[in-house]
């Protein structure tokens, strides 16, 4: 089974780095699991997300989200919930995860066979160079555990 673990976010934009840091933490804690899956970190995957998903049976995307929930809240969205997002009009850089997945559903029939899950970490601040806020940093352990649980479900 081909599984992709993808950490997404801009390392210099405060809590936006949460996805990258959570995947790196999980990777350090679970090297055996990490060796069995494809691990990628991407600051701004954009349309290249579709290339990363090519040939995968499952993908776990870990990304910071802007949400009304308080910073550090962790959410897990399955394929149906992801499909319900309405994308904004894209800019050249603006191919976000939701709209890229929607484009993929329209254009790449084989993507229907890939189960995509998104683990989102609500961010509090996204200022340049600010680093992770304490609440988001405190949530990383929980996210790493969730990533591991999801993978074990697949590898069972």
């Amino acid at each position, binding site marked *: 089974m081909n599984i992709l673990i993808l950490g997404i976010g801009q390392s210099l934009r405060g809590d936006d780095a949460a996805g990258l840091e959570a995947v790196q933490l999980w990777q350090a804690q679970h090297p055996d699991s990490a060796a069995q899956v494809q691990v990628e970190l991407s600051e701004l995957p954009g*349309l290249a997300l579709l290339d990363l998903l090519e040939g995968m049976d499952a993908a776990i995307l870990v990304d910071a989200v802007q949400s009304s929930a308080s910073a550090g809240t962790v959410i897990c969205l399955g394929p149906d919930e992801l499909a319900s997002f309405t994308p904004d*009009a894209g800019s050249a*850089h603006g191919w976000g995860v939701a709209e890229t997945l929607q484009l993929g559903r*329209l*254009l790449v029939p084989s993507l229907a066979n890939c189960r995509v899950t998104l683990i989102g970490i609500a961010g509090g601040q996204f200022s340049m160079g600010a680093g992770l806020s304490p609440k988001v940093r405190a949530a990383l352990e929980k996210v790493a555990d969730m990533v591991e649980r999801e993978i074990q479900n697949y590898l069972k």
Partner: protein
Amino acid sequence: MKTIEVAALARVEGEGGLYIGVKDGQVVEIRLDIYEPPRFFEGFLVGRYLQEVPDITARICGICPVAYQMSSVTALEKALDVEVSPQVYALRRLMYCGEYIESHALHIYLLQAPDLLGQPSALDLAAIVPDVVKNALRMKKIGNDVLKAIGGRSVHPVNACVGGFYRWPDVAPLKALLPELEWGLEAAKETVRWSLTLPYPDLEIDYEFVAIHHPEEYGVMHGDAWSSKGSKTSVADYEMRYFEEHVQRSNALHGHTSYGGTYLVGPLARLNLNHAQLLPAAQKALKEAKLKLPLKNPYKSLIARAIELVHFYEEAIQLIKTYQLDGPSHLALKLKAGEGCGMSEAPRGLLYHRYKIDEQGMVKFAKIVPPTAQNLPRIEADLFALAPKLVKMEQDVATLTAEHLVRAYDPCISCATHFLKLKIKEVVHVKA
């Protein structure tokens, strides 16, 4: 039509808005507002070692990083009186081919085509013509794959340095791209045929076109800046003829010629000035298109991009077929104090750099003139030319026609935000 206000332009790179003020049925004010914050690249390059410059300036843009690398290395090589080998030059051209392919395929199909086909976004376009968008993504990916084979990754590739490349890319991954590039060449020819069927708004402008021209190759990195008004300016004299000025309301500088006129850089300028240097398949595509040159309709820069796509697929194939590892991948640099300027044709137009370095190779001064800054006054002038037609249109049609014009320029607003002469008061305002 009433006043048009587009708070945030979609499908352009960076953050900008559009304002067209109408009073008593007349357009009285047009502003392309660039509110993307300035990024001070020229400021923080000062004090850096010259080999850091190509990789730092590449970060100015995610779509045209190669342009920033190539303009900076040619400028710094000039400062050191260094000339790279033909093999290095050929590999630089190949890298540039990759960038043109990914940038043009993206712009043609995902950024401008939705306007021409009456769709609000590329997603809506994908819903009605999935195969067209699917082919577009495949065409774009080939360009990114070329960048990855040479520069290790498909966006912000590394490897280019002052004096050449850090290492020669392996031959096998490059040769493996040939079948996809051959497919892309055919898809690009089809793109030209398709581009001729699209319903472009009527608008003819008597532009001053400016592009790098070289008698023996399609002007990208070597040659002089030619103007359609007849002037031929060497890179050393570029700043004698082309100026930038600060505009109070904008975070981008505005370009103008030494006599105060506006000018146009980009695919229309290149095609009109350099069509004789296109490779055979692109020549054939141009001939079959039966276009009357010079092409003066800004919306039709899409056709120019399509013809360039044919050229750059064709050139990439040629360069890969003849690619061989030969000699050192980069020169040993002898540092000395100096000054040099360089220019190259980014997909959206001419990009000029100038640097001063000290005897240790540290940057003392940097100046970057991006294509979009040069085109901004021209975009506003075009909108004024369009105004009599806009005021007669329904509000939504007028808005879309104006937005489409801006998008047709493929503006890179992030690249254009770079003014340096900031007063403290303005900094506070920008951050607010």
